[in-house]
């Protein structure tokens, strides 16, 4: 019996509703977009912390007032989260806290690791916010990354167990967005796997689905068996529906030697991939793959179309138990 992802709580909120909810701790990744700044100003919390990612290349003079913690690019997300959360409250420091996190400006590998990091820090339940943009600054030509993909690799700590067969049946599920270069790099890194492209549908805005499909066409030669039948769809602003679709897709794929997950689309979609991974795939033959880029644009969107709140119930996160051993260690 799988997890009923539709039962997880999510709600669309307005800016005016936000102050009514008070949190002990609010974390948000800093960037220059309006939607990140507005949410951080509006939410009420005892302690607000900006996480500053190297990938945005801010220097100290550009950083906002308030408490700031750096997430260095050279430090893997697991370690980075451990540093941040330990400074917030030490081991199990989130145990009694009400916590909210805005993932709108967060680097995707950090979102991928987020559920496990929160669970390890003792959190039971966390509200994750995401703000839809009204539009992107240059439509489908908006560049989110600055510079090319430098390498594709597994996110440390999300590497899973491996099987060993001459002709393995692996699958790669890619959550795609506008940046076809990222999809291309991921697909080319695992050319032997069965490729499934998961697209946001409905998309954040009505035109964005078509634009994503158009952009995806540029990566067609790298995607194995590129055709509509190898695509899956989930609402771009609903991580739990995304997780549900991944779960169904994995079931339909049958017995796999290894499952690779990678999400480079909208942040709620990334959260959905992450949520599926930590609820069902962690400790199994499954890994989270990511195309690492040197820099990201600081501001790619206009306005706020909607604000979403997703409640992560962290008791669902799997523990990483040691496999049963044969001959002893």
């Amino acid at each position, binding site marked *: 019996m799988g997890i009923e992802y539709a039962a997880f709580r999510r709600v669309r909120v307005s800016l005016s509703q936000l102050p009514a909810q008070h949190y002990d701790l609010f974390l948000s990744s800093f960037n220059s977009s309006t939607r990140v700044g507005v949410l951080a100003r509006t939410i009420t919390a005892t302690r607000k912390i900006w996480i500053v990612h190297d990938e945005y290349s801010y220097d100290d003079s550009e950083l906002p007032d308030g408490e700031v913690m750096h997430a260095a690019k050279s430090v893997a997300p697991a370690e980075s989260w451990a540093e941040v959360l330990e400074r917030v409250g030490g081991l199990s420091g989130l145990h009694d806290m009400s916590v909210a996190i805005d993932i709108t400006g967060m680097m995707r590998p950090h979102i991928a690791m987020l559920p496990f990091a929160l669970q390890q820090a003792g959190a039971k339940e966390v509200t994750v916010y995401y703000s839809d943009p009204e539009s992107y600054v240059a439509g489908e030509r908006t560049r989110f990354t600055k510079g090319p993909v*430098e*390498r594709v690799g597994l996110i440390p700590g999300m590497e899973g167990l491996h099987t*060993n067969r*001459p*002709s393995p049946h*692996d699958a790669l599920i890619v959550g795609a967005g506008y940046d076809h270069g990222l999809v291309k*790099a991921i697909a080319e890194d695992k*050319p*032997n796997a069965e490729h499934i492209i998961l697209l946001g549908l409905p998309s954040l805005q009505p035109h964005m689905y078509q634009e994503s499909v158009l952009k995806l066409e540029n990566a067609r030669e790298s995607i194995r068996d590129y055709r509509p039948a190898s695509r899956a769809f989930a609402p771009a602003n609903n991580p739990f529906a995304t997780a549900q679709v991944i779960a169904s897709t994995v079931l339909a794929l049958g017995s796999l030697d290894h499952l690779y997950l990678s999400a480079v689309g909208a942040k709620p979609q990334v959260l959905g991939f992450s949520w599926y991974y930590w609820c069902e795939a962690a400790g199994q033959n499954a890994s989270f793959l990511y195309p690492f880029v040197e820099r990201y644009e600081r501001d790619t969107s206009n306005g706020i179309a909607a604000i979403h709140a997703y409640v992560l119930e962290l008791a669902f996160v799997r523990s990483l138990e040691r496999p049963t051993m044969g001959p002893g260690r």
Partner: protein
Amino acid sequence: MRSPFEVTKAVDLNDPQIERTYVAFGGRERVIVDPTSPMPQFLTGVKGGGRTHLMRHFSYSLQKARGTHALDEIRADGYLGVYFRCSGLNGSRFAGKGQSSEVWSSAFSYYMDLWLTELLIATVRDIGESASWSDDDVVGVFYAVAESIRVPADAKSGGGQALADALDLLSALRVDLDWTINNAAHTGNLDINVRSNPGDLLFRTCQAVGDLPGFEGVRITFLADEYENLGYDQQVYFNTLIREKEAPATFLVGGRSWGIKTHKTLSAGEENKKGSEYELSTIEDTYARDPKAYETFCRDLIMVRLTDFGLSAEEAKEWIGRLSFESDDRFFSKRLGAVLDRYAPSERPYLVRLRAVIRQVRSVTVADEVATTLAFPDYPLLEKLAILRFYQQWAGGQAPSVDIALNARDWVAPLVDGSESVELTNFFNQRKSDAVAQIYNDANRRTAYAGFSELVGMSGFLPRSLLMILKYVAHWASFHGEEVFRGAVPISERALSEGVLDAAKWYLADAKPLGTEGEECEIAVKRLGRYLQSIRYSDKPSEIDITTFSSNLAGVSEEALAVLHRCLEHGLLLEVSGGRASRNHGSTHRKFQLHPMLTPLWGLKPGRRGDATFTTETVHAIFSPLVQELSFSRARETLEIALNAPFRGVIDTRDPLF
């Protein structure tokens, strides 16, 4: 499937398809590499040479499929092919997480031994299903494993000593390692109990397998594909296995040329030497040594796909012929006439430009008379060659005049009735390709490419590139409503042009390396292509069918050299062996060719003929990532001024190109 060329990568083919589409190069097996060779072999090259196809052909699953009894096939073949992809190891796991590289090196060595041994036993177990080995036969394999990893033979629950039990032991250890390696990211600890000395487990197990009934004299060949996925330290360990290998084990390693990072070993820091510890073959170089055999190989590949698609052998042969232009005279008058159809004979674009430039330096009257003199309304190619001759004399220092035009006309006119001299025949044969390309270009048409041989040449000894060309050509022909795989009508020139152009774009995107390095390579080859384009489409091309340049590279900056070498490693450029003797002082220049797959992007000819000598400054302007676009454009403009009428360019005398 809409086309027999839809699938172009070996990874997209299942085992039966691999075997069905396999063609032996030169018509003989094991010409490129020999899986029975006791000498370890590296099979390298750029993407698309057919390495994976060949290695899978050698793999156990296909050995088994070729007969009814696996062990009989293996004995007949003389080897057991244990195939695996290095990408499956996900080598990036063995780094970081607060551990030193020494710790990871040790963990990886152990993991690799477990991995290879597990694969071997899984393969042998499959053979055992039809080999009717007794328990006593296989117990030696179990003991080899158990003793190597220091596990009491009865430690496993149930106490079995079958191949499956050995496999369980190894799998359990490896899975525990997987867990430990993953969790190091969360805990900062990497607590691994390495249970065997490097190589012991693997080679002892190989020897035990070699003692199985039926394995007498059989080589166990580990076919390690996608070797570029292993990091430097990981390759050092694999090289150590290669160096320390014990019979009956041997290795055949497949990987991209740039992915062979080192031949160093852990054996007292020794480096494996080519010829002593390993042999190395670059697959496209093997093809290139016999271009005729390569074309036959390609023809056979295409025939196999076409017949598999449902065409008869005769239809398949005819289809290959449909890739050629329609029959024409030696001056391509029908084809070029069609290209220029929308212009009145006296208004052909190159005549218009000729008149305009002469008007600038002489007069309207002279311009008109020159143009009239050089016109061959029924033979556009001769017209173009006469104009070229005229420009050559102008560039040589003679003022443009009707007399020169008459000389030029008289020079080419004998071609009309075939009364030409040997010198003129050579001029015609050498210059016609550029002239035809210029006529297309002048008429705002893309350069045409056709004919199986030309497309094979364009593939640059990479069979996948040929498949991609045919895939795109078939796509465009279908898009234009042509009967692509039926009938006898040639595939349209339009579909061929669009197809090769798409294939060229694909090649550039596919071949370039990842990251900033890839961007730098792309900028460099695009600059090179534009520079060569400026030569080919000039009034007086300094070289014939230019795709090649040479340079002594003296004084070229390190960053420019790094980009140039990366372009070579990734198949964006080819180095011509032997280089070229310098025109000035006898020293040897290195010679480089733009990869033929890229030539359609700039309307260049895929083959190699002329060779431009580049100065240090030119090489720098093209390959240095520090040179801005504006500076490169200036270098190109200087070239264009020198090569185009009225030939007023300031010529850099240091550059023999001019």
